[in-house]
């Protein structure tokens, strides 16, 4: 599986098993987030520790997922972003759009 999830209380932790997150997986990922949105105020942590490269298609899917979750008064936070992906997020101000944490523990605590 490209993405796995585990539930901790009311928080869904999604782990990306991909090293390169790109167009091929973007639609499936967007649907994965949509499917896990539940009814109201979903809380999600996305663990990106495996991802070393992310293309604009996948970023688009991530942003679409965030918009969906925000529309339900929920939150998506990101954890364990690699230096290269973080550099891209900073360059394109996506670090201002997403809440980003060093590790999943910090990310989970932020949602409690």
């Amino acid at each position, binding site marked *: *599986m490209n993405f796995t999830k585990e539930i901790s209380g009311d928080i869904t932790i999604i782990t990306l098993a991909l090293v390169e997150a790109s167009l091929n997986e973007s639609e499936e990922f967007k649907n994965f987030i949509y499917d896990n949105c539940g009814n109201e105020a979903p809380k999600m942590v996305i663990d990106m520790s495996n991802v070393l490269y992310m293309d*604009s298609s996948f970023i*688009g899917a991530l942003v679409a997922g965030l918009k969906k979750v925000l529309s339900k008064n929920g939150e998506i936070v990101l954890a364990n972003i690699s230096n290269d992906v973080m550099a*891209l997020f900073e*360059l394109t*101000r996506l670090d201002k759009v997403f809440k980003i944490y060093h590790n999943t523990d910090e990310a989970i605590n932020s949602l409690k």
Partner: protein
Amino acid sequence: MKKKILVVDDELIQLVLLQKVLENAGFMVNKAQSVLDAMDILKDDLPDLIISDLEMDQLDGFEFKEILLNSDKYHNIPFLFLTAHNKEVFIEKGLSLKAIDYIPKGIPKEQLIAKINNILETVKDQKEQSVNELKMVADRLNLKNVPSKNLKFKNFQIDIFHQTYQNHPGGDFIDLIKIDERYTFLVLGDVMGKKWGAWFFSFTFLSYIRSAIRLCVFDGNLSVAKIMQRINQVIHADDFLDDIYSTLSLVLIDDEKGELTYSGASDLPLLKYKNEDKKINQYKSKGLLLGFFEVGNFNEQVIQCIPKDQLFLLSDGVIDYEANGVKKTDINLFISQLENLLSEEKTFDEITSNIFNKEKYQVDDCSLIQIKRI
């Protein structure tokens, strides 16, 4: 790049033998001992061809083919039956499933490889034909997201490099909107996504951008930050673009004063090469992705230029590349390459042919615009 084949057979010996034959012929092989295993593999890895046994426990080859035909994601994958039966069995069931390709078990390996190559070649030809037809229609409708004509300025020269990805149109879009002899807007956007999907939406974004610029100018507003916010507002309100996002660099060229004003939405920095000190400076904008928030936090920066200064706008395809099978995003590498070439006074054509070459495999469509103060 090696073609991938998924082989499905419940007999392990048959599976391994076929794998060996196919790998020796230069294919990459994934193998599955049941339809359920095959479906698991397909979730993560789409092959160029599936070869499946007909008779298997639980789900057989016909049922497998039927599942694939009912799936938007898998129904176009070429499919080849491997069977000990004659064609009568397909006449009974297979033809209704569009299962027209089969190979008898025990076929000599040369014939097997020839058959596979034929199928893959036909698929490639059909794809190329479809793309060419779409391109012809787009040309006839005058649908262009990159201008075919350049504009002349007194104090500037603009050069545009745009390269498609795998010969497919993509999400990058460029426009030059001349207001009068003094002012011209330069637009570079990138719809997130690749190939035809992104290309299609680029026209919607371009229409909004052109309209917003014209309407703001009619109202006497030449502030690029305010124009960006106007563009952002309409895109935010459009449900059609609900989960489609685009970056945007917007530059107002003042040909009288010889200066530029720049604003951006989640775009890459504007680069300015000062001929005096042979260095590139980055101008980072503050604006967020078009349409995501109702207010996009756009700022604008006035950039003074003296003759021989060169400015560059770029899409993300410029800094994304694949080397030794690994994909990377590296703006610093691009800047240092560009700085070196500019200090050697290379022309724009020399710069682009030097940076975008076969050694640095492109992974997206890419656009680079040079604005040179003359």
